[in-house]
Every structure is written in structure tokens, then in C-alpha cells.
């Protein structure tokens, strides 16, 4: 949209010409009628003191009702940022999270005041650190399979967020970001190419020059983020475009993205193979959305195929306790289809980050993990006779339609019989695995400090009937959920950090809890102590927004993996094995996390050393969260 000089007060242009702040204030209002009145009144002050001045022509007209009184009318009646908010709203984005910054106060004002009712869809979420803001969006996206918005302050806010952007990128998670740019205010908070500092680990960015371009850019940022390989995207928006009046601007019609699918011939081939196989198998990796999971279940049930899942590794995979999930009654599979996973005969896997990374890494930083195909989470590692680069989720309806077309009545009966056998075998295997698991999990049951297995074991009966989500990574706390819990929802377990970056568990859980609140879900955050200390202010966000999140501290008072690394290195060098705690432990003083939670307004208790007190504390925590109050329990634990 071109600027209309008569109605638009461009801030940059204005500041160049204005004599001072007072003049600036005057220039923001329509002042002509008032000035006229003052001029006329002034002229009349020449009348002798004590006499009553004759009414002016204007006053006479007003008396007669022929003119309206002079009113200072602001010209900014429809700021561009209102349209930006409407664009975000139309995309179905539920939350916008930010730590406040002067480069986007125009946008923030629109987010909190525009619309009926305002501050709903999206709701403005307050973060205490940009790293937490983006990680909240990371956790939300993993739980919901769609992005929320993170708004960042110019330059410094982007730098605060950089690690979490990198992590979301590495995890192939969609996050839409907007950064403000205000070149006229604080020079240190602007840059010629603001997105450049994170370009190597974002999928797409833009710095539009007009409002029209901005609205299109927001829509495109959304589309790019949700299209494989999913990743964060960034739109840099000048404060001028945010604040300019835009009385005639229109939001462009939204065009959803196209997902690459297998072609009809390939769909027929795969369907034929699945239908004719005596014992097919479907390996399910990480799909994009809950809809993809539904389709994978539909296909597996349709063809009676055993499935493997990554539901105990991350989100959006096949339900772990589905009757067809497991090795089944017969492990001699004659056809295996991979969906975002390896499959012996065919593997449908979306493009990896390597596909998009190189052209974006213009300074040749060369992040090794990103540039190595197959290293990113969810990539097919198993060799496949037929690797197919396409989006598995978008391809599933084509395969399902073909299977339905090809299946005969006889085949259906045979499949039903096979599925029943698999279900029985998988159930028996599951019960045996749990029996074996509990035998090992009881080790150290009554020991002090508390065993990590006991935390997961005591939690499970309390949440198994809730619609729960374990949002924190469990690898550092023993991963006991894998054997003890049932991961049956697309969001049951959100998996690891993405790139191993610390400061992830709590903000990712807050993001998941944002998704959970309106959906009556229960979020569990088994929180490692070292990880929480990067940006603990996120606890305040959980308390402020009353998010359904139970945090159980895995407080081993160290960065324990690093402690072991240093211990090993001291052994290699034959010295100072009693000094490995320096720099890798959190002792002297110990940190009191219950007090930390209280400081941020979150209810909690601890530290708990005695395992006998754990269950009652967990029950109080679950009850608190179900009442709408997040809760923290500080548990002093065994290292792992």
C-alpha cells in the first residue's frame, strides 16, 4: 500500500522535520479548527477590558447548530498494526508471546486492544525473556502441530532468542516470529538486515516496506513455517508501518500452502503392496499434526499392519498402546512402509533441513548437524529400497483411498483375523514388558534421596486418567515414562530439546500448557535443576496465566552429565578426580526451588528428601493444577 500523505504521519519523516517534541504532539492531531478559533479569539482580545466581546461568526454558526465544535481528532484511527493482528487472527494463531520492547509497542497495543473482544485469539502472553518466548512457541507447536507467534524486540531481542530459534529449527518445529524495527529511536536496537543474524537457522524471513507487503509476509511466514521441513520464520516490521494509519488497507485473501505428496501411481503401488502383503508393517515416525496421526491409525487398521512408533521419543506418532502397535504375532514382515521413518520397501519422508539450510547459510557457518542429511529428528535412518521425498501426512489420504478401492471382502476378513492376532500378541508383550520394568524400577524405592524411577512411577497412577502431556525431556531423568506410561496421544510426550540446548524444559512446558488450558489437559514438567536456572522467570508466566502445569524438580544439584564428563577426563589425565565438581555442580549454597517458585507466585513445596513423602506431595500438586493453579514440588533426587 502506498502511503497517503494527507492522512499518514510517517514517524521517520516527521522526526526529520519537526522542531521538537511539542511540535510533534501537535502534528499528530488535526488542529486547524482550533487554531482558527484561537486566532479569531486573539484578535478579539483587543476589545477594551471589562466589555463583553461580540460573538464571532464561528460562535454564531455553532450556536445555530450549523457547525460542530472543534475537536482534536487523531488521524491514527486504523493503525496498520490492527490489520496485522487481524491477519494473525485469521490464521488461527492462538497466542502471541513477547517480552516488551519499544520497537513493537504499536503492534502490542493492537494485540491487547484491537477486536471484540480484544486480546483473544490471539491472547498476548507475557514472557520474561525472549529465549523463553520462542521456547514456549516451540513447546506449543510440538503439542498442537501448529505455530504460535513470538514477538521479539529489534536486534537485542532477536539475539536473546537466537539459541531457542536454533533449537526449534533443529527440531523442525514451526514458529512464526515478528521482530520490531525502530530505526529512529535507539540506534543500538536496529540494523540494516536484522534477520541476518538468525538467517542460518530460520527457514524464511522478510522485511517488508509497506503494510500490504507486511500482511502478505505474515501469511507467507505462516505457510513457510508449517510446510516441511517445518521451521521458524521471521518477519521484521518497522514501527512506522505498525503505527501508520491505514484506512483503506485490506487483508489479502489467504492461500493455504501446498504439501508435496506422492503421485497417484505411487499411491496405487503402495496400497497394492499393503493389501496383498501377508504381514505388512508400518513404521511411523513424527508426523506434522494430530490429523496425520489419525490418518496413520486409519491406514494401519485398514490393512491390519503392525506398527512401530516414536511416541516415546517425541510427539505426533502412533499411539503406543494401540492394539496394532508393537511387533505383533509374527515378526516376518513381507512389506514395510515408513511414514517419516525408515521402511524396508518404501519410506515416505519429507525434506530435511539440509535441503533448505545451505542457501540460507550465506556466511558459511556450516552448522554440522543441520547440514548432515538424516541427522535431524524423525529422519528415516533405516535404508529403504524406495525412499520417497514427500510429506507422509499429506500422502496418507491418497494411500487410504487406494486401499479402500482395492480391498476385497475376502481380504478384509483376512486382515481382521490378522489384526486380532497382532493385538493379542502386542498386549501380552506389553504386560510382560511392564512387569519386567516395575521389577527394575523398584531399585532404590525407599532410598534417600528419591530415585527418579519413583517419581515417574508415583506420578503415573495420578495422571493416567487425565488428558496428560509430558512436555519436558525425560532423557536426563532416567526416561522411566517410556516403560511405565502409555503414550497414546499425539502430544503425550514432546521429546527432547531439539539441539540439546538447556533452558528448555520449563518454557516448553509453559508453551504446552498454553495449548492445554483451553483443552482441559494436564501438563507435566519433570524439571532438571540446571536447565531451570537459565531463565526461571518463565515460572511467573505460568503463574500469571494460571496454566495447568505440574513441575516436579529432578534436583540432583548438578549438571550431571557434564560432571561425569569431567570426572572421566580427570581419570584419563590421572589427576584431581576429587575436583570434578568444580564448575559442574550446584552446591554451596543449594538452590531452594520451592522458594524460587514462591517468588514467582507459583504454589509449591519442598525440598523433599524422603521418598515416603513424595506421593502425598504429588497428590497435592495434581489437585492444585486441576484447580487451575500451577504447582512445583522440589524433590532432591538421585543423580539419574
Amino acid at each position, binding site marked *: 500500500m502506498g502511503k497517503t500523505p494527507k492522512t499518514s504521519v510517517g514517524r521517520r519523516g516527521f522526526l526529520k522535520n519537526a522542531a521538537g517534541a511539542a511540535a510533534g504532539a501537535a502534528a499528530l492531531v488535526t488542529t486547524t479548527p482550533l487554531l482558527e478559533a484561537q486566532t479569531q479569539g486573539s484578535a478579539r482580545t483587543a476589545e477594551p477590558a471589562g466589555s463583553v466581546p461580540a460573538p464571532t461568526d464561528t460562535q454564531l454558526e455553532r450556536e445555530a447548530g450549523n457547525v460542530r465544535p472543534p475537536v482534536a481528532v487523531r488521524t491514527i484511527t486504523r493503525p496498520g498494526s490492527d490489520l496485522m493482528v487481524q491477519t494473525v487472527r485469521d490464521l488461527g494463531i492462538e497466542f502471541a508471546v513477547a517480552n516488551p520492547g519499544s520497537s513493537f509497542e504499536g503492534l502490542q497495543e493492537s494485540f491487547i486492544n484491537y477486536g471484540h473482544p480484544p486480546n483473544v485469539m490471539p491472547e498476548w502472553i507475557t514472557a520474561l525473556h525472549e529465549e523463553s518466548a520462542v521456547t514456549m512457541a516451540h513447546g506449543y507447536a510440538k503439542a498442537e502441530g501448529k505455530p504460535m507467534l513470538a514477538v521479539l524486540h529489534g536486534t537485542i531481542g532477536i539475539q536473546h532468542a537466537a539459541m531457542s530459534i536454533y533449537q526449534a529449527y533443529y527440531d523442525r518445529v514451526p514458529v512464526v516470529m515478528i521482530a520490531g524495527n525502530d530505526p529512529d529511536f535507539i540506534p543500538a536496537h536496529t540494523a540494516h538486515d536484522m534477520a541476518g543474524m538468525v538467517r542460518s537457522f530460520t527457514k524464511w524471513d522478510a522485511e517488508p516496506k509497506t503494510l500490504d507487503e507486511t500482511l502478505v509476509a505474515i501469511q507467507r511466514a505462516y505457510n513457510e513455517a508449517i510446510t516441511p521441513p517445518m521451521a521458524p520464520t521471521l518477519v521484521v516490521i518497522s514501527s512506522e508501518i505498525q503505527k501508520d494509519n491505514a484506512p483503506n488497507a485490506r487483508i489479502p485473501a489467504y492461500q493455504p500452502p501446498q504439501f508435496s505428496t506422492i503421485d497417484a501411481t505411487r499411491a496405487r503401488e503402495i496400497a497394492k503392496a499393503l493389501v496383498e502383503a501377508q504381514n505388512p508393517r508400518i513404521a511411523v515416525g513424527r508426523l506434522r499434526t494430530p490429523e496425520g496421526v489419525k490418518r496413520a491409525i486409519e491406514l494401519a487398521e485398514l490393512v491390519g499392519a503392525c506398527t512401530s512408533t516414536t511416541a516415546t521419543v517425541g510427539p505426533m506418532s502412533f499411539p503406543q498402546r494401540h492394539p496394532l502397535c508393537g511387533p505383533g504375532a509374527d515378526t516376518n514382515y513381507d512389506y514395510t512402509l515408513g511414514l517419516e521413518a525408515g521402511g524396508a520397501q518404501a519410506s515416505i519422508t519429507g525434506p530435511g533441513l539440509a535441503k533448505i539450510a545451505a542457501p540460507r547459510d550465506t556466511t558459511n557457518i556450516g552448522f554440522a548437524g543441520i547440514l548432515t542429511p538424516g541427522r535431524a529428528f524423525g529422519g528415516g535412518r533405516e535404508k529403504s529400497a524406495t525412499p520417497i521425498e514427500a510429506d507422509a501426512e499429506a500422502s496418507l489420504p491418497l494411500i487410504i483411498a487406494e486401499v479402500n478401492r482395492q480391498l476385497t471382502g475376502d481380504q478384509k476378513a483376512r486382515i481382521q483375523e490378522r489384526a486380532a492376532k497382532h493385538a493379542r500378541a502386542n498386549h501380552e508383550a506389553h504386560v510382560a514388558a511392564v512387569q519386567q520394568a*516395575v521389577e527394575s524400577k523398584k531399585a532404590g524405592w525407599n532410598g534417600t*534421596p528419591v530415585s527418579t524411577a519413583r517419581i515417574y512411577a508415583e506420578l503415573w497412577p495420578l495422571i493416567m486418567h487425565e488428558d496428560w502431556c509430558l512436555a519436558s525431556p525425560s532423557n536426563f531423568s532416567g526416561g522411566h515414562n517410556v516403560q511405565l506410561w502409555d503414550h497414546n496421544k499425539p502430544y503425550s510426550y514432546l521429546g527432547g530439546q531439539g539441539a540439546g540446548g538447556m533452558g528448555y524444559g520449563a518454557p516448553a512446558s509453559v508453551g504446552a500448557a498454553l495449548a492445554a488450558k483451553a483443552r482441559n489437559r494436564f501438563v507435566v514438567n519433570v524439571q532438571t535443576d540446571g536447565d531451570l536456572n537459565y531463565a526461571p522467570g518463565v515460572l511467573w508466566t505460568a503463574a500469571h496465566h494460571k496454566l495447568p502445569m505440574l513441575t516436579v524438580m529432578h534436583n540432583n544439584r548438578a549438571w550431571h552429565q557434564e560432571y561425569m564428563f569431567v570426572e572421566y577426563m580427570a581419570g584419563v589425565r590421572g589427576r584431581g578426580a576429587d575436583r570434578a565438581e568444580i564448575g559442574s555442580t550446584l552446591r554451596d549454597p543449594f538452590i531452594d526451588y520451592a522458594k524460587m517458585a514462591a517468588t514467582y507466585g507459583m504454589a509449591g513445596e519442598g525440598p523433599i528428601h524422603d521418598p515416603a513423602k513424595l506421593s502425598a506431595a504429588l497428590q497435592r500438586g495434581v489437585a492444585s493444577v486441576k484447580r487451575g493453579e500451577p504447582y512445583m514440588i522440589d524433590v532432591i533426587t538421585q543423580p539419574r
Partner: protein
Amino acid sequence: MKKNAFAALTLFLATMSGQQGNIVPAPTSPVTGNAVNGKALYYTYGCYACHGYNGETGARAFVGHCGHLATEQAFVTFLRGRANVAPVVPSTSMPNFGEASLPDKKAKDIYAYIRTFKSSAPDLKDIPTLNAIVESAKQDKK
């Protein structure tokens, strides 16, 4: 590798299979170290990091799996016979504890403390939580 170190390692590897569930009887050989001193050293030298504060948890629990701790000397030999080359990548494997870093006397004190470890785990039938998990697993779910 010295012969006694090799023997200790062989014993260690043989008994590590016990981690998968084979319970190894607790040793009964003589102990000459001081368990009280050993408790402090067990913490200072980071043994708890992998073996748990009570030897029951972590990557390598002692309780029920301590065949390589059959004798005090086997333990000391084992400590000296671990990896002694710089790892290519960071490792959480059992470190080497050379005599310069952990003298025999201290090692024997640690051994004495390890020998005090006992299982704190009740019988499974006496842990309602774990029984409830098994019962739940027996229910058909989708």
C-alpha cells in the same frame, strides 16, 4: 594391560550382565578400609554420579550387581585398569582412578563404604503403586 587388570576387567564384564536382572550375591571377603571415611570419599570422588548415593540406582547399580567387588584388591585393580587414553568424544564411562589421584587407602575406604550398601527396595507385592501400574497394563487399551 597388566595381567591383574585384565583379570579384573574380565570379571567386571562378566558381572555387568547382572545389570540386566541376574542378581549377584554380595561379597563376604575381608574389608580393611574405613567406611565412615569412605562415605565422604564416595561423594567427593563422584562415585554417586553413576552408582547412586546408595549404590542402588543409576547406570551401574552396585546392590545385587557387585561381582567385580568380590575382594578389596579386585576393586582397587579395577579402578586402575580403566580407560587411560583421551576419548574422542566426552564419555560417561567408568573413569580411570590412578593411584596419584586416588591412593589405595582411600580406595579401600570407598570399598568399605560400598560394602555397607543394602537394597532399600521392598518386595514388589508391598509396593501398591507398582502393582497398580501392572494391573493397569493388563487392561486392554486403545
